[in-house]
Each structure stands twice: as C-alpha cells, then as structure tokens.
C-alpha cells in the first residue's frame, strides 16, 4: 500500500539522518575528550618539572644529595602517587648520575621509568614508554642548566591508564546509547507518522469508491488547515470538473445525434424520391441505393448513441418489473435460430425452468439479440453458440458463449467502449462498434454488470448480471413511478 511505504520511507530517511548525526556527534565528543585529557596531563607534568627544577635542583648544589632525596620523597612519595619523578645530573659525553630515582627496584612501587635518561636532550620533550608492569607512561623530560652551569635532566611521568580507562568507558557508553536512541526514535517516528497519514488513508478509500457513476459524491474535507485539507479541496474540485466534463460529453452526444436527424431525414427523403424516378439507369440506382444504405447506417448510429447517452444519464425510463429471464432467452434463441443455421452454427439454449430477474424485459431482449447476433457473426461454420441462464445469490446470470474467433487479449478491456473494434475480428462491414456499448449501458442502467472473457481463436463468453426478483431490491424497483406504455420499451424508432 502506498501510505505504508511512504511512512516507512520517511521514517527510514530520518532514522538514517539521525544515525549519521549521532555518529558524528559521538566522534567529536570522543576525540575532544581525549585531546583535553591528554593536554591537561601534559600541562601538569610540565608544571611539576619546572617547579622541581626551580625549587629543588637549584638548592641541591648547596644543600646536597640527601636533602634533595628527602625533599623530593616528601613531595612526591614513591608509592601511592600518580606521578613518578627522576632527577639525573648529566656529565660529559653520555655519562649521568641519577640523583633521585623514580623508584627502587625492590620497594614494590607500581611504576618506574625503564628507559635511561636521554643525555643529549636539548629541549624539553614528551615521550611515551611502558613502565614496569607494562603500564603506559607519559614522560616529560626537561633538561635544565643550573646557575653553576651543571646540566640536569628532570623527568616527570604519570600513568596514561586513567585516561585510557575513561575513554574506553566513554566509547562504550556511545556504542550502547546510539543504537538505543536510533531505535527508539525510529519506532516513535513510525508510530507518530500514523496520525497525520490517517486522513490520507481515508481519502484514498473514499476516492476509490467514487466511480464514474457516483461522481455526485465528494471527498470528506479534513479540517486540519494544512496540505491535506488543501489536497481534499483540490481533489473535490477535480471531481467537479470531471463531472462537468462527463455531463458535457453526454449532452454533447445527445445534442449531436439530435441535430443530425433533420438533415438525415431530408437526405433520405430526397434520395428515396430519386430512386423511384422512372427510367433511371442501373448505375444511378446502384449509387443512390448505396447512399441510402449508408444513411440508414448513420441513422442507426445516431439512434444507438442517443440511446446510450440516455441510459448513461439515467433518463431512459428503464422499467423495473420481474420477468422470466430463462423463458426470454429460450424464446429469443428460438427466434434467432434461422440466423444461426444460415451460417451453419448451432445455437443452443441451456436454460431450464424459471429465473426471475428484475428489469425492462424489452431492453434485456435487445441485449440478448445483440449478444446472440454478435456471437453468431464471429463464429465459424460448424461452430457453437450456447446461451445459458442461472440464478446466483442475488443475481440472475445470462451467459452467451461461443467457440468463434475470439478477441485478442489486448482488446478485451476496450470491447465495451463506444466504436471500439478489435481490428482483426471485426470488419467494418458488420456492426457499428456500438452493440456491446449498448449492452453494457443497458446492464448498468439496470444496476447490473456485463463482463467478457475471451481467448483468441478459442471463443468468447459474455456474462450479463441482473438483479434477481426475489431479493429486497424488488421493493425499490416497484416503487418507481413508470407509466406503463408499450413504446416506452423501444429504443429505436
């Protein structure tokens, strides 16, 4: 269904966008936090190193080694402290002397610098190394020249583990939260889309119900004040225009047929006069006769068009009386027997007993004649035409089946259209392309339906569905005020 897919499409679009923005957002947070933590760690290490150099190393030269060790171990206890300190005095070449070791090998301290002091370091630098127990350490090495000119290297280190731990936790949090948020937003959005789309669903259903016959109806206007209200308004305007166009179309064909009658009358009268004149040569008689035949054909087309448009507009005065459809089909088949045997086609009627239908018997007979005539025309020599009538629930079904030339599949949807002719099967010489339109119009005017099935080369079957007499429909049908008159039954005059 269209609405469902629209809903899914919108939801998946915005879930996708949400996912991407959440990922970007998470990445920004992660890398931002990482940078900030590392920078602040480095800053504090550098500060420590400088203060050690200024406060302790300068005085070391006057106060001695023991003092330094004492002071440093007081300020930076070797266990339980986050920071590890090592101070070395550098000699010539690559000689050095560690004045304050980061830790003793045996005192159980957790962290300890493992690399020897970099003796040729000119500027302060950060480096990483794994300490004892493979703890990653961030080390700040600070070369320092005292007032006396002696060179020292002060190294302050701190474990990187807390930062790594924090980042790991952050990452975990992001990985859990992002899908959760996306999932919840997706479900919520899908459910919420239901509300604004509900009117669209009802619009669709209603619009489907409004067929050509019920164009008088209008769609419900959704008073939301938004696009949907405008949509229902413009759809209604469109239906109005459609109704007008159809009305115009019906009136037009009625008017045209009507206006054609007087000139046709004159043409016919004049030509009939000519053909009666004495001493005409055969050629003239032939031409005038041919013209008269065409006038007759034209007159029939005009009549049929008028009849169809009147049936379509409901002004045909269809009577609604119960009659025996089975008996009617037997009688009609009987009357058409000669036409069939003329073409050596067998015409059989398979309708026993009575099937009471409601309608205008004369018009239904016209339908029967039309259907049988068609079937006989398009059936080959030694073919079969079968007419059958049966009752089915609320309907009386009339079916005319032949094993004739059939109708190509691509033509089937059009056979009830006016002037439509399947090119192969129906040549110009036979019929006007209006017979089946008339059949269909009569059925529709009865509240019934005509349907066709056909296989090219195998035959055709046309079914006419009429309301049955013993249904509640009868009450409606009998209530209609139709003056009984023999000529109200006629379509052609």
């Amino acid at each position, binding site marked *: 269904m269209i609405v469902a897919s629209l809903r899914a499409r919108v939801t998946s679009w915005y879930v996708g966008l949400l996912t991407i923005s959440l990922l970007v957002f998470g990445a920004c947070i992660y890398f931002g936090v990482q940078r900030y933590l590392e920078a602040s760690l480095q800053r504090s290490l550098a500060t420590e190193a400088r203060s050690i150099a200024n406060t302790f190393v300068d005085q070391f030269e006057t106060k001695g080694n023991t003092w330094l060790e004492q002071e440093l171990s007081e300020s930076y206890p070797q266990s339980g402290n986050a920071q590890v300190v090592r101070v070395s005095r550098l000699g010539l070449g690559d000689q050095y002397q560690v004045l304050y070791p980061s830790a003793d090998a045996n005192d159980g301290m957790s962290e300890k610098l493992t690399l020897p002091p970099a003796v040729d370091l000119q500027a302060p630098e950060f480096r990483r190394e794994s300490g004892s127990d493979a703890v990653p350490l961030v080390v700040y090495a600070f070369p320092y020249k005292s007032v006396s000119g002696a060179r020292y290297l002060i190294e302050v280190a701190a474990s990187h583990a807390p930062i790594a731990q924090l980042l790991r936790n952050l990452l975990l949090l992001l990985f859990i939260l992002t899908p959760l948020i996306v999932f919840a937003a997706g479900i919520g959005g899908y459910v919420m889309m239901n509300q604004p789309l509900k009117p669209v669903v009802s619009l669709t259903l209603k619009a489907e119900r409004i067929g050509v016959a019920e164009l008088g109806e209008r769609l419900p206007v959704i008073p939301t004040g938004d696009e949907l209200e405008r949509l229902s308004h413009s759809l209604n305007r469109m239906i109005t225009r459609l109704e007008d166009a159809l009305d115009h179309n019906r009136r037009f064909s009625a008017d045209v047929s009507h206006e054609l009658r*007087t000139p046709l009358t004159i043409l016919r009268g004049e030509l009939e006069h000519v053909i009666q004149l004495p001493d005409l040569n055969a050629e003239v008689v032939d031409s005038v006769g041919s013209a*008269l035949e065409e006038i007759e054909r034209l007159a029939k087309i005009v009549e*049929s068009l008028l009849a169809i448009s009147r049936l379509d507009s409901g002004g045909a005065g269809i009577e609604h009386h119960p009659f025996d459809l089975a008996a009617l089909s037997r009688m009609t088949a009987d*009357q*058409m027997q000669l*036409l069939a045997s003329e073409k050596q086609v067998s015409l059989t009627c398979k309708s026993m007993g009575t099937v009471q239908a409601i309608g205008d018997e004369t018009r239904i007979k016209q339908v029967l*004649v039309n259907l049988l005539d068609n079937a006989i025309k398009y059936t080959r020599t030694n073919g079969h035409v079968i007419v059958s009538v049966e009752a089915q629930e609320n309907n009386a079904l009339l079916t005319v089946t032949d094993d004739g030339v059939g109708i190509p599949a691509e033509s089937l949807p059009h056979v009830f259209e006016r002037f439509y002719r399947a090119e192969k099967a129906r040549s110009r010489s036979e019929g006007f392309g209006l017979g089946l339109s008339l059949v269909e119009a009569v059925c529709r005017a009865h509240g019934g339906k005509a349907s066709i099935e056909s296989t090219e080369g195998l035959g055709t079957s046309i079914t006419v569905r009429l309301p049955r007499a013993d249904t509640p429909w009868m009450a409606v049908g009998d209530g209609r005020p139709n003056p009984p008159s023999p*000529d*109200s039954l006629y379509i*052609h005059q």
Partner: protein
Amino acid sequence: MRILLVEDEPKVAGFVERGLVAERYAVDVSGDGREAWELAEAYPYDLIILDLMLPGLDGSDILQRIRKKNTCVPVLVLTARDAVDDKVRLFEMGADDYLTKPFAFAELLVRSKALLRRGPVNRSSTLRVGDLELDRLTQQVKRKGRRIELTTKEYQLLEYLMQNPGRVLSRNMIIEHVWDQSFDGFTNIVDVYVRHLRGKVDDDHEFKMIRTVRGTGYMIRSESES
C-alpha cells in the same frame, strides 16, 4: 383525401408533399404553428401530419387544441426527439401514431394509409397478389394453386408484404410488424427471412414477386403491376 402537413423545415416538407401528391392526395403545407392551427380549424382534413417543433405555436399545443375541439381527425406526429417520456405524453395528448426522424418515406406513407383507412388493414380472409394466394383462416399459401409450406415467421412476413402490395416496406417496418423492436439493432434477420421466403415463393417461377429496393426495403408485386 386531404392532408395537412405541418413542418417548418422546408426541405422535409418538400419531399413529403411531393411524395404524397404523387400518391394523389391533396396536401396543404404549413410551416408555422399559428397558421397550421387556423388551417386545422377551418378545413375538415382527413389526416394531419404534425412536426413537434414549430415556430409560433408548438406542435404539442396544436395537438391539444385539436383534441379539445373533439375532432377525431387522425394525427401522425413527426418528432426529432424520441425521449420515452415524450412519446408517452404524445399518446396521452391524443396522437394516433408517430414517426421519429429520420424516417423512410415509404413508412410515412404506409402509416398514413393505415390512419386514413381507420381500422385494421385489409382483414378479408384471403389476400391475393397476382397468382399468389394467402388464406388467413387456414393459414395456407398457394402460388398458381400449388401449396407452399411456410414457417410461422415466414407466413407473418409474407402476410405483411401482401397487405401492402406494390409498396416498399422498410426493414424497420417489417421488424416492427413481424418481430419486435428488440431486433431493430444491427441484425440482418429480415434479409435472412426474406431470402428463405423467396426460395419458397419465387424459386420455381419465372416471375419473381418479392423485390429488393436497395437502401429502402422489400416489396411484393404481381406481374401486372411491374
């Protein structure tokens, strides 16, 4: 026999008048409603052929006035609209018959004659056209005394033709008389039956009595009439 033809379309009036005059009727033509009503009031016509849509006074008004005066002159209505309600109203107003345009002149003539005769066409028990004889009581048909076996429909068709010897009957008229209006679609049922009838009536004889008038219909005539 004097006929009043009320028709405002001059060309239609022209050929109808010509045809009726050729049949030796006296014809007055009027194209205006008011004038037509005055004529109808002034002269005792034997038949009025009345078009419905007229300037001056509408055809249906004229019809009502004629009937109000209680004249029993037969009125044949010509109409270009054949809406069912219209026809019902026409009969209620007192029309005796009607024709929808475009009509065949032959049909107008046959209907006019029927109205002029007042009452059923030739009801004598035996119809005779040349050497062809149809007995309505026994429903037997003989040509030159030789019996011809016909089906019911063939009999009805022949009877209708023989009621109007020498006159062209259109397919429309034949369908209306012998079958019913349902067959007046696109079927060629009349042609098929006429062919069969010919086979039985004409095949063994040199003179062919049933004649096709192309574009118009069929007629039956005797050797002396041809």
